[in-house]
């Protein structure tokens, strides 16, 4: 993966996505006493997905704070801490639970800097484990990132690799604005090369993960690895696809997508959220409004989740969101027949 190499760092090594997040948190907390981690069961339990792990033993209960199950309250507490000099990182145990905190995220965190004419900043980070594939059913499996990408004042990122999980989190903690990080539950145990140093991945910059000439596949989150696996199979059949990892939904890197479309003349967007009114609609419209539209040789294809709450049955759950096979078939059809 071109943007995921460790570079010259001899100490780069393979760790998991969860370890990469924990490493970023530990680095930020060691460097800056203003950084605190708060959330439900982030202390001795180590986080529902083991992300915070032993941080409470390293930084103490004053900085790794177990909260009551009060999502609205803790989101507001993060806002209050952020506007008065702290750098809170809030873990929402399952991203679905952010629905309980919408008020503070959407009405307060996103708008305070603007409403106050720039007189206060809200430098808070919200970490949100999301996505399907764990058999957790309709209230613990959603991909709601597009909701927040609709809100001016928020930044929304979705790391797909351990490298980006660390680099984007460190950028998010530095950022003077509220940043929501949609992590993926299926990715926590995946491994990748991550430098030991405190590097940053810029927010708002997509990554070209694989270069190709026949079609562009823009993917988010867990869909990136599925798109890359599909691309490998497509290559064996003589179809060359360019895979772009969007990484950041807001701000969005339209230029990287448009440049790729100008090269390949075909575009497919793959995301885990519900297809209707989602990320794919926005990217399609942005390309349709841009000069890249003139380069298109086929209609744009969107692959997203079916219009259904996530089902429990493993068979149905798998069918509800795009899989490698779906991406492979749709991309092959797009290149061979224009998507018909």
């Amino acid at each position: 993966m071109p943007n995921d190499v460790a570079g010259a760092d001899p100490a780069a090594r393979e760790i998991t996505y969860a370890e990469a997040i924990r490493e970023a948190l530990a680095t930020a907390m060691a460097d800056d006493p203003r950084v605190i981690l708060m959330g439900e069961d982030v202390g001795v339990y180590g986080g529902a997905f083991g992300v915070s792990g032993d941080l409470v033993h390293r930084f103490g209960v004053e900085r790794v704070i177990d909260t009551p199950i009060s999502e609205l309250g803790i989101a507001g507490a993060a806002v209050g801490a952020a506007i008065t000099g702290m750098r809170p990182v809030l873990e929402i145990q399952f991203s679905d639970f952010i629905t309980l905190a919408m008020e503070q995220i959407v009405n307060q965190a996103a708008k305070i800097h603007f409403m106050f004419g720039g007189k206060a900043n809200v430098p808070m980070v919200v970490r949100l484990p999301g996505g399907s594939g764990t058999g957790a059913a309709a209230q613990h499996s959603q991909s709601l990132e597009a909701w927040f990408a609709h809100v001016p004042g928020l930044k929304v990122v979705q790391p797909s690799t351990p490298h980006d999980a660390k680099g984007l989190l460190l950028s998010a903690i530095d950022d003077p604005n509220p940043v929501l990080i949609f992590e993926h539950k299926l990715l926590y145990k995946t491994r990748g090369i991550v430098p030991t140093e405190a590097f940053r991945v810029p927010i708002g910059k997509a990554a070209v993960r694989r270069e190709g000439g026949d079609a562009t596949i823009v993917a988010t989150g867990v869909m990136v690895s599925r798109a890359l696996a599909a691309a490998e199979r497509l290559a064996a059949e003589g179809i060359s696809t360019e895979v772009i990892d969007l990484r950041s939904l807001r701000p969005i890197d339209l230029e990287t997508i448009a440049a790729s479309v100008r090269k390949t003349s075909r575009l497919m967007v793959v995301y885990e959220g519900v297809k209707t009114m989602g990320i794919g609609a926005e990217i399609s419209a942005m390309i349709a409004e841009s000069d890249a539209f003139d380069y298109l040789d086929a209609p744009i294809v969107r692959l997203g989740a079916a219009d259904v709450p996530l089902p429990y049955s493993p068979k149905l759950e798998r069918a509800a969101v795009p899989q490698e096979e779906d991406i492979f078939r749709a991309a092959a059809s797009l290149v061979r027949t224009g998507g018909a």
Partner: protein
Amino acid sequence: MSTLPRANQRPELSAFDDGTLAEALRKMHLIRKFEEAAEDCYMRGLIHGTMHLSIGQEASAVGSAIPLAKSDYVLSTHRGHGHCIAKGASPDRMFAEFFGKETGYCNGRGGSMHIADVEGGNLGANGIVGGGLPIAVGVGMSIKAQKLDRVCMVYFGDGANNEGAFHESLNMASIWKLPVVFVCENNNYGMSTSVARSTAVANIADRALAYSMPGDTIDGNDLPLVAATARIAVERARRGEGPSLIECKTYRIRGHSKSDRNLYRTKEEIEAWKAKCPIRRLEGELLNHDRLGSARLAEIEADAAREIAAAIEFAKSSAEPDLAGLTRYVYAE
């Protein structure tokens, strides 16, 4: 601040020296005249949008802020002009904000419902009922983490006491012993719905018991009493002993907002509360106890009127935001 008790004065009044009481009266007049002028400007089409006037509630805003230092924080509500003035904001920049001008506290981006004076410790009014309550918890965490000698006072109305945010916030402030003072301004109506119809307890401060903190229900139109009660809560917070809940029973003489036709309450009720005007009440008590004197009282009111008139002129003559700045302040750099 306190003086020796004087004969015939209740302790709440004698606890405050002349300078403190004169300043409190000045701010109460400023609030009243700010609200009346705002209403007048609206009627004459000089300002748009809506507004939530706090006429009748001046004692709870001013009294509760007396024990606060400039470095202490407040979080306010949609009915927040009074809190803003009480915390020390200047009416000219408030009116400029109300007029949507670039010289306003929020450069015209917030308006009446989102006035903030961050430098003065006012972290903002809030358009969402109960919106400031969880934020106060975070401010309290921040004060504690940074070991600052500060407290956070958060205002909310009776309507907010039935929001989940109220319960989550009191609970968190209590378990973490945060330096937060919760001030409920109970004006008896959440828009049109009375406390009796909306709330399962007789007094909102009774709910403090559920969160293991002191709770006081007091006459919110009695400035010395509000100030004395707030002082106890603020000192407790400063000592690190945790939060308190104060319920100030008061009344808004005007409707909820501009759309209110007062269909849910009687003229008699409104008139009865007008007779309990907190400003005239304080003036009467001061005169009865030979504090300040009538000439000084008249001078304070006249000065406030002049300050408000000048504030409106400042707002009128200020520049509107430049269209090129439409998307400014969406993100901090």
